[in-house]
Structure formats: structure tokens, C-alpha cells
């Protein structure tokens, strides 16, 4: 039963994370979802080295335990956890910048801003018919709204 529970937990975290990443409309929640998915993957990796009745691979009372769990996945999970936190910090930093650049943390809104900025910066070559993207804004509006700092906090 134990493996059922553990694998259900790990796979559950992984899938909740990935689904949350796809479904969230808020960029900050997407970061949280990534953190959750990573936790699930780490747990899966650790489970790959578990042994029934095994002890932690540490010298105690003059000898190593006779049955030990596999130390290799443990070392790899250690590495993966630290990698994960580095990426998480970078994601947060990028989010802070996203808010400065586009003034929003809503996913769709940010994508619209991005496409507008790109179209404006790269518009060099236009022989193909201009397609209306589903994200294109309706009606007249300034190409790039100037957003004051801290506007959405008020």
C-alpha cells in the first residue's frame, strides 16, 4: 500500500503542478505551480532509491547499516532542489521586471503587450496579408500604454 500512496502523492503533485501551470491566468500562480511540479518530480526521483527496511546511508555506531537506501538518488534530489530554488528566484525576478515593463501580471494581458511590442519593434517586412491574431486588441488604443509604477497596487 505504501508505494501506492507515495506514487499517488508524487504523481499527483507533478500533474497538479503541470495542470496549474497550463490553467493559471496569473503569472505568479504559474511560478507556484512550477514549484509544486518540481516537488513532485523530486519525490519521484527519491522514491527510485528507496529500499524496504533500509536505513539512511550514514555511519553509525562503528559501521554502516547492513541494509541502506540508495544514496545516489538522494544526492541527485539534493542537487535538483537547489537548482529548483535558483530557477524560482530567477522567475520571481523576471516577474518583477514584467510588472515594470508591462504593468500587469495577468497572463493574457502580458501576452498581448508582448505581441504588440514585438510587432512594433520588428515591423520591417510586410508582404504577407496581415492576419488578425486572436489576441489583437479590438478598437482604437495606444500601441503601448505607459504604466506608472505601482499603479495596480493602488
Amino acid at each position: 500500500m505504501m508505494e501506492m500512496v507515495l506514487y499517488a502523492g508524487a504523481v499527483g503533485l507533478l500533474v497538479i503542478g503541470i495542470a496549474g501551470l497550463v490553467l493559471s491566468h496569473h503569472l505568479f500562480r504559474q511560478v507556484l505551480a512550477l514549484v509544486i511540479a518540481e516537488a513532485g518530480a523530486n519525490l519521484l526521483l527519491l522514491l527510485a532509491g528507496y529500499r524496504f527496511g533500509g536505513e539512511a546511508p550514514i555511519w553509525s555506531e562503528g559501521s554502516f547499516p547492513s541494509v541502506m537506501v540508495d544514496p545516489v538518488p538522494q544526492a541527485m534530489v539534493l542537487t535538483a532542489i537547489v537548482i529548483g530554488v535558483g530557477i524560482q528566484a530567477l522567475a520571481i525576478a523576471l516577474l518583477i521586471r514584467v510588472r515594470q515593463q508591462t504593468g500587469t501580471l495577468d497572463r493574457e494581458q502580458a501576452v498581448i503587450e508582448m505581441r504588440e511590442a514585438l510587432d512594433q519593434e520588428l515591423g520591417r517586412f510586410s508582404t504577407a496579408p496581415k492576419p488578425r491574431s486572436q489576441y489583437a486588441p479590438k478598437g482604437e488604443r495606444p500601441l503601448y500604454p505607459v504604466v506608472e509604477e505601482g499603479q495596480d497596487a493602488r
Partner: protein
Amino acid sequence: MHAENLALLVALPLLTAFLLQPLSQKFAVGWLAPLTVLVTLLLTLQLGAGVMEQPISSVMGGFVVPMGINFYLDGLAWLFLIALQLSLLLLWPRGEQGQSVRVQVLMLLLTASSIGLLLSGDLFNLYVFYELLAVATFGLVAAGESRATAIISFRYLLLSGVGSVLALTGIALLYSHAGTLNLGHLAELVASGELVLPLSAFLLMLLGFGVKAELFAVNGWVPEVYATLSPRLSALLAGVVSKLALIVIVRLLVLLFPTPEASQVLLLLGVLGVLSGELAAWRAQDLRRMLAYSSMGQLGVIFIAFSLSVEAGLLVGIMLSLHHLLVKPGLFLLTEQRFQGWSMVLFILFALSLVGVPPLPGFWAKFALLTGLVSAGGWINSTALVVFLFATVVEASYLFRVVQHYHQERERHQERGRAAVSVVGQDNSGVWISTLFATGLLLTAWQIQPISDYLQQLAVQAGDRQQLSAIVVGVTEGRP
């Protein structure tokens, strides 16, 4: 040359990266980073002397193989190492971006991780280098000039994050079946039939490592990122770095999953990549995104090539990769400024080769794929063949639409009695570097026979699992 020195190729760029920031507070160190790459290039040349006859393997820390991590240098890795480091030297960011110590540091980390990806013989270690490559790329994307850099980099980070979670899951699955992650050791176990790895592990790792290789379904980042990066960095990422992830995937396919099912998955994703990439490129509104989409399509073609049988597929795939490695950076560099005169000539040359016009190398690579697909037979391969031919037509149409557009623009300018376009003091280095790539292309066209013989040898070596496990694990007896 001492085989243990393989580690230096990764250690030296890392060392310089760590030292660069403290040093830069005292001295101007702009030259130190490229110099390091030059040193590793020389080291590579020295190490690779006998590698075509006998690949070398070196275990970090001097442990026995399944315990320690090994570096493995064969002809394939060596060739791409040289290509990587030459491209790095040519495309090293200059100007305002190059002044920033942080950008230099990230470039060095990119260098170290790329070299690591080519050399490492351990799956989890590959994952670590892959993550390092990813993080360095996020930083470089965010350092771009566009107003949308942060959101683009963030979206790339999320996609890549999902990829790495999937890859990690694949590694976990593989480890719980095999109990080892060394590629040589695994290859030996798989070849002897002692171990059957689940295809799903391949799928998970394919999606994970495929993010950087512009594999279909995980290539959503490509147009945005290449549109915001400076042309040099786009050239570097599209030209060389994508091939490194590709080589990782190919090694997985050849060494661990030599089953028809795995190849078919690759073929399917390749076909979808070709279709989506080329059609998107046809509809693209600007040159950079067009090139980015077309790069997705061409990577798809390369995936199709690698999905052929090991003997035929490796050779064709390597040919196509090398061709793309010469052409795509050249094209991206041309987007640095407006087209005129010489850059137009270069663009047409690259476009002709990309489409596959006879004396140019692109033709030979595509022809090899064509014959490969025809001789492989079966309805799947025939479908791939049709898609591939269709893609070539689409490719030709959009590339020459660009030529036509710029030609018309130029004539319009001339009618108004103005010089085409001449911005005073424009930086022309992009065109010069692009010229170098074009020279490489023409040299290849000239020496096509010896080069393809060499690649043939290379492919045979890269497909030789027994040699690999013999060299890496050191067990040869008891196996024919």
C-alpha cells in the same frame, strides 16, 4: 594528450566565469572570456587528434564508471565541439552588451554548459548542464533590448521548467528500472538484453531535452526568443546550441532506445514540427520571426532524418545539422541591418542552399534524406517524404518572397533618386561574419566528397554501441 584533461574544457570556462566579477572590479577584463574559449578550442584540437580511431573517456574523480561521471569524446562530439567554439568566438556579443560583465559571465556559463552537454556521459549530469544552459539563456534573453524581454524570458522559463520537470521524471523512471545513469553502462545493459527500458522514459526525456532542440510541442518559445535576442545570439542559439540538445536526444535514441517505436515517435514529432514551422514561417510578418519559424521546420527535418535506421539516419542527420549550422547563423546575422548589395547576395546564397539547389551542400543533405526515406519505405516514411517535399516548396516560396520584397524596396528608393540605404557608421561586422559562414558553405560544396566520407566514418563511430561501452565501462570480454 592526457585524456583526463577533457575536464578542463568545462572547468576552465567555469573558473573564468567565477573569477570574472571580482577581477572586473580592478581591471578591464573584456578580453578574458573570449580568450578562455580560444584556449579551450586549442585544447580541443589537441585532444581530438586520435579521436577518429579511438574515442577517449575520462572519469571525473578517477572512480570506476557506473559510480562516477565520465566524459566521452568521440568524433561526433569533437566535430561539434569545434563548431561550437568557433561559432562562440565569432558570435561573442560585442558593443554595448559585450561591455557588461554579467553578460560575459552568462556567456561563459553558456560555453561551459554547452561543452558539458556534448561530453558528459551521465544522464543526470546532462540534466544539470542542460539546466545551466537554460538559466544562462534566460539571463541573456532578459538582457536584450526589447520592451518585452522580461515576459518573453519568463514564458521561456516556464516552458523550459515544464521540460525539465518531465526530463527529471524520465530520469527517475529510468533509474528505478536500471539503477544506473551512465550512458555507456546503460548501453551495455540494453545491448545485452539484460535490461529493457520503458519507451515512456524516452518520451519524457525527449520532451524535456526537446525544448532546446526546438522539438514540436515544446518549441513555443522559439519565435519570441529569437526575435528579441541580438542577431548574434539568435545565430548562436539557432545554429549551434539547438544542435547540442539534438545530439543528446540522438545519443539517447541510439544508445538506450534502439527500438522502432522510439524512432516513430521522433518521426511523428519531426513531421509535425516541419508542418507547423514552415507554415508559420510562410505567414510570418517579419524577417526574424520568419527565420525562427523556419528553423523550427528545419529542426523537424533533422528529427525525421534521425528517425531513419541507425546506419542511414545518423549520417543524414549529421549532414543536415551541419548544413543548418552553417546557414542559419549566416541568415540571422544578416538581419542586423538592412539588405543591400553584398548582404543580398549572401542571403540568396544561403536561401539557395537551404532550399537545396544542386551544387550547394543543402542539396546533398536533402538528397540523402530523400533517398533514405525512399529506401526505408512504408507508409509512414512516405508521408514524411511528402511533407518534406511540400516543406521545401514552402521554404522556397517564403525565402524568395523576402528577396523580392527587398529588391522592390531598393528599386523604389532608387527611383526616388536616393542611395538605397546608407546609414553612416553602421556596424558591418555581422555581414563579415556572415560572409565567413558563406565561405564555409562554399568550401563544403567544393570538398563535398571527402567531407561526406569523413561524416560517414563519424556516423559509424557514433552508432557503435559496443565500442562505446567497451571504452567507457571497460568490459569487453564475453561479447562478440
